[in-house]
């Protein structure tokens, strides 16, 4: 029983950190461009498929496959931002619908290229650490560590670098930031591309643990939006916290509660948060 709960805890934490990295992209994009980019889920799924292709089909070593996948997804993000999202800045409904159009295109393209058959990576890092009676798979620990490191360094970059502080300033007062020399358009593009790359990285790491299907993107982006709202949209570290709360409660919940309604609990929780504390759990008011 303890082994089961610890196992679910670790699973929940990893899945939660994956929600968190996509949620971070959602939060950043929303803060800087004023739209909710649902297509981040599709980019995550693309990152996973690119990694699978690089590692399994081309024979690249896993870390290199991850880097290539993230760069490719980032480049796609750049193209999409210049071609589409540039025209929907601060227009929530249009941005939402453009990202939905994008999801259909990306998902259908993946289906067309790689079919709907689930894909698996052969073990990247087999074996596990033994701590007393508890087994911790090495790969899961590695993925969790990388996710935490990336989210942590994003936070540091946002607070310690010029561009990060520019982003904060812009989120607080766009006009004042522009007057202080923040190049608005460039900042928005950088943030959009960075968010897509984050989602791509999430997908690339996901690929090493679970099966790939074209529908994972849609599932993960809904959870990511839940996580972002849960912690209060616009909150960087909150995205990770929100993701972990949802991931862990799903993992632990699946041990004690009927799994059929697993997704419904998250929804219910989300509705309650929005009704009674719209600024999120970590929000100020």
């Amino acid at each position, binding site marked *: 029983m303890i082994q089961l709960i610890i196992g679910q805890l670790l699973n929940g934490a990893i899945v939660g950190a994956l929600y968190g990295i996509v949620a971070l992209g959602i939060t950043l994009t929303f803060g800087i461009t004023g739209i909710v980019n649902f297509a981040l889920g599709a980019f995550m799924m693309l990152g996973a498929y690119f990694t699978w292709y690089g590692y399994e089909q081309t024979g690249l070593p896993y870390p290199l496959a991850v880097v290539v996948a993230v760069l490719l997804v980032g480049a796609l993000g750049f193209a999409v931002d210049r071609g589409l999202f540039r025209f929907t800045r601060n227009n929530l409904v249009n941005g939402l619908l453009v990202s939905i159009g994008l999801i259909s295109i990306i998902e259908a393209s993946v289906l067309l290229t790689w079919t709907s058959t689930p894909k698996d990576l052969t073990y990247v890092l087999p074996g596990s650490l033994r701590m007393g009676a508890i087994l911790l798979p090495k790969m899961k620990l590695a993925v969790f560590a990388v996710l935490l490191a990336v989210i942590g360094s994003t936070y540091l970059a946002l607070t310690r670098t010029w561009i990060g502080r520019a982003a904060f300033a812009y989120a607080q007062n766009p006009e004042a930031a522009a007057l202080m020399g923040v190049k608005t358009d460039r900042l928005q593009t950088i943030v959009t591309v960075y968010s897509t790359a984050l989602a791509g990285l999430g997908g690339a790491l996901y690929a090493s643990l679970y099966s790939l299907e074209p529908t994972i993107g849609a599932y993960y982006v809904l959870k990511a939006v839940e996580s972002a709202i849960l912690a209060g949209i616009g909150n960087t570290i909150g995205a990770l916290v929100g993701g972990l709360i949802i991931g862990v409660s799903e993992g632990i919940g699946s041990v004690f509660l009927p799994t059929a309604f697993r997704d419904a609990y998250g929804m219910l929780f989300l509705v309650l948060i929005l*009704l009674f504390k719209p600024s999120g759990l970590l929000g100020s008011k």
Partner: protein
Amino acid sequence: MIRFVPLAALVCALIAPLVLKSDSTFAIVTFGFLLASLAVSFNLIFGFTGQLSFFHAASFGVAAYVTAILVGDYRWNFWLAIVPALAVVGLLAILAGTICFRFKLREFYFAVVTMAFSEMIRLLVVNWNSVTNGTLGMTVTAQPTLWLPSGSVAVSSARLWYYVALALLVVTYVICQRVLASWIGRCLAAIRLNEQLGETLGVNVVLYKLLSFVIGSVLAGLIGCFYGFYTGFIEPQYLSITQSLDIIAMVLLGGVNSLFGPVIGGLVLTALPHVIDLSAELRIILYGAILIFVILVMPRGIFGFFSRPRHVV
């Protein structure tokens, strides 16, 4: 001129069966009418009140399930079964709407919460196996009867369904038009254009938002009642987010600022995949491309693109 387009279109639709012969054309146009009615009812909430609701598929699907269960399992008369179906949809809409509007959820938050409600209802339908048969869905074999002067007939032929669907479209259209032409329509416009200003001028924002939401949802339910009987098959997919998105796409394609726009959008988006012969994946890609194109290039939709901009009250 543009005022007479809907009337001219109705006349065309009434005489079209004299020219049309093949059953497959009838089927496409009938589906087009049903989905266009859905788009028209959705536009009351989205285009005319300014609320992006993701609840429409739930209203549509719930009504389809309730009628099918009452007629199939309890042997009710189809027309009688519509009443409880619409009552259930109305109650659900009042519940969801009251929660959302009382707590002043706007824009994205309204969209997310209605989506959450819709998903919860879908999960209930998927998991309530004993009643809804879960993910497998239900087949509907019964047919509604019509009482004509010549005696009662079962609505089964493609031609008869064509007229039933057309009648539904006209009913939905006229109800929405009457609502918008009344004082309600002016209150909805006030809410859409400037909610705070409307409130200070004495418009009961919560009440009128709720009114538009409930009327739109019940109309979606009415179409749902018929839809299941036309296709002969009901599945949880009817309540999915994708279904809601399809409706939004139709409205946007046709034009948000008009009553007639969604009719065009519904017909075009239903017919297009059949006119151009493509594989399922390419069809979805085309669909996404059209959606993006319309939003970025013609934000006022097909109908708005060809009609003069006018001041909508």
